[in-house]
């Protein structure tokens, strides 16, 4: 098996997992969600295998670098981090229904990587500036951060999906109680924030070792700082101003838009030092 087959299978299995979750939600069958969870884990295994194989293949070609070097690889890794985080959350909180809001993100990221004509899946060599151990630390931290925010975003959607009135017979009434949604969203934001912080810091240390400047207001740097500000605002609103519910969920959604812009918008619309996500 080679990496591209393994990753294609992962894409397909993630799609299946999303279908199970959505089915469980629509037909109010918890067993479907349980199956979805197992399918998601299988997809995750193929995702992991694909990344490892790609790493090995890059050494066989002679380029020899960790698979975090272009947009394709970063998206595959993004799927992986969201999956790992979601699996952890479901494991800990035992709320399988919320997979409806997380599994599609996992699927869409990896599907976008393989289907978009703008994104090449070729293994490319590293330019000299990217040859650093800080690259690995930086990318892993940033993507764990993005994953936290992505899952938080999924959960924030619940605030707008779940009816305020608990008596309603809508399918959304099956969602977990408000204080659990609230806590879960907050936990994901906090997780994302810690890793975004570490990501920005490792990036700065790396820039200092490659160019002698830890901060140069490059668009990607600036946008990651903007994202950081938005989530800092989120936390102060929650802790000091007592914001919660839909108002706070809106801030989390704005934060995720900033993440998306940092990730894609900067690459496609602005120019700068970063050659990939």
């Amino acid at each position: 098996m080679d990496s591209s087959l393994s990753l294609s299978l992962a894409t397909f299995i993630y799609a299946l997992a999303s279908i199970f979750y959505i089915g469980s939600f629509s037909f109010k069958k918890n067993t479907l969600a349980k199956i979805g969870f197992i399918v998601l884990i299988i997809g995750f295994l193929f995702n992991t295998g694909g990344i490892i194989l790609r790493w090995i293949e890059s050494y066989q070609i002679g380029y020899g670098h960790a698979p975090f070097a272009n947009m394709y690889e970063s998206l595959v890794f993004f799927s992986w981090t969201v999956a790992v985080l979601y699996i952890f959350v479901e494991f800990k909180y035992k709320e399988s229904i919320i997979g409806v809001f997380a599994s599609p993100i996992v699927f869409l990221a990896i599907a976008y990587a393989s289907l978009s004509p703008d994104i090449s899946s070729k293994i490319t060599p590293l330019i000299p500036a990217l040859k650093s151990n800080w690259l690995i630390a930086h990318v892993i931290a940033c993507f764990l951060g993005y994953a936290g925010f992505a899952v938080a975003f999924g959960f924030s959607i619940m605030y707008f999906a779940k009816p305020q009135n608990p008596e309603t017979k809508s399918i959304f009434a099956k969602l977990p109680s408000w204080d659990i949604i609230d806590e879960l969203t907050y936990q994901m934001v906090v997780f994302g924030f810690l890793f975004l912080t570490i990501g920005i810091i490792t990036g700065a240390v790396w820039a200092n070792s490659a160019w002698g400047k830890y901060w140069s207001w490059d668009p990607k740097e600036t946008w990651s700082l903007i994202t950081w500000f938005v989530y800092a605002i989120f936390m102060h609103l929650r802790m000091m101003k007592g914001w919660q519910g839909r108002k706070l969920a809106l801030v989390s959604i704005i934060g995720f838009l900033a993440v998306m812009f940092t990730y894609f918008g900067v690459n496609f619309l602005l120019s700068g030092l970063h050659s990939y996500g």
Partner: protein
Amino acid sequence: MKKNKTVSEKIWQFFCSVKLTVTTLVLLALTSMIGTIILQNGSQSEYVRLYGESFYKIIKVFTFDDMYHAWWFLGLIIILCINLVVCSIERLSTTWKIIFPKKIKFNATRFRKQKNLETFTIKKELATLSSSYENFLLKTIGKVIKEETLDSIILYAEKGRWTRIGVYVVHSSILLLLIGALIGMVFGFKASLNLDEGKTSDTAVIAKSRESVNLGFSIKCNKFDVKFYDTGAPEEFKSNLTIIENGKVSFTKDILVNHPLRYKGINIFQSSYGTAAPDSAHVDIVKLSDKSVTHLSIKIGEEINLPNDMGLFKLEGFLPHFDFRGHNLGEAFIGRITPKDGQSFQIGIPVKFPTFDKMRKGNFAFIVKEFEKKYYTGLQITKDPGVWYVYAGFILMIIGCWITFFMSHESYFIEIQKKQGKTLRVCFSATTNRNQQSLKLKIKKYVVKLKGKQ
């Protein structure tokens, strides 16, 4: 309640609000976007071309062309700092008393009213159960406070009181970062130096002001090397540098991208490279009338006699990008022909196009056969005495975030009451300053254990 506040009190109040924090952060986030859209540090002509004359005036007024150093942007950061300091001073004394209380007290009624209160009954001796619970608390939480009455025992234990300091660690890390950045701005510089192989220099040009700065020592570039991938992209570039101090060789070292040289507070980074002017070239001089070829090695600046005493030829210089009627013909040499009796004129000899000079239809055509390719190394030279403060800030921020997010001050409360006969009623609840949900899960876990201690 005082009605009339003095001006200084009003100012203090203004800087003491979290509303100000949020507002400033929102403004910082919004304005930071401007600099990612409008070109930074460009020249006047670029701005006029991109945005037009009238918009250029607006850009100048608000310093949008260097907005991250604009007075209003720095002003926002200063407001944030004052806000942070004032708020911390205001609250620190209260927090301090919570963190270091004279005596740890707890409010039993508050625990009995907790939503997470769990109640169950057990058949056992009061003293044995209480001592087994005390043991449990001691092992999993910490020091236990015990309050006894005739028919009930209250056990209390807590951990993580100190974690309330986490927020202050985060906030002071931000101040430390900004202090480091300020030191770097005032006492540091960022300059660049393009150094040909074999050349030595002790000055670099500051990127922003274009002023030159003396480094206090000289750098000699002995050799530059670049390796390419089969795709043509550069794989690695490397300069072999010698540091010369007071005329004496200090040491020699290779620098690569990501592996700079640090010496006396000055950092020397490999950042780019290019083709430097060579010393000489091997030139074929073809006499067009009989196709006879003369081969010569000519130094740059050297003047030679053309064959058959037909005049002089001087190799004047080298261009990395030869522009011919708007086309870039790449590397080329520039020569000057002075015919025996006539006006001298200049010719270009592009290396990649050997037939180019033939088209001039002169008496001779010049072809550059080969030349020793020389590079210059592009060095970035920086000095930043503030970087250690910034790094300390980084470390503190990560530690502080960890404490704030993942650790909390948790207090546990167990009340055991005697009921009829040997039945005991146990109430168990807990409070925390953060992470209510994960506390709930912990309580569920602990209850199972407590029930098990029969």
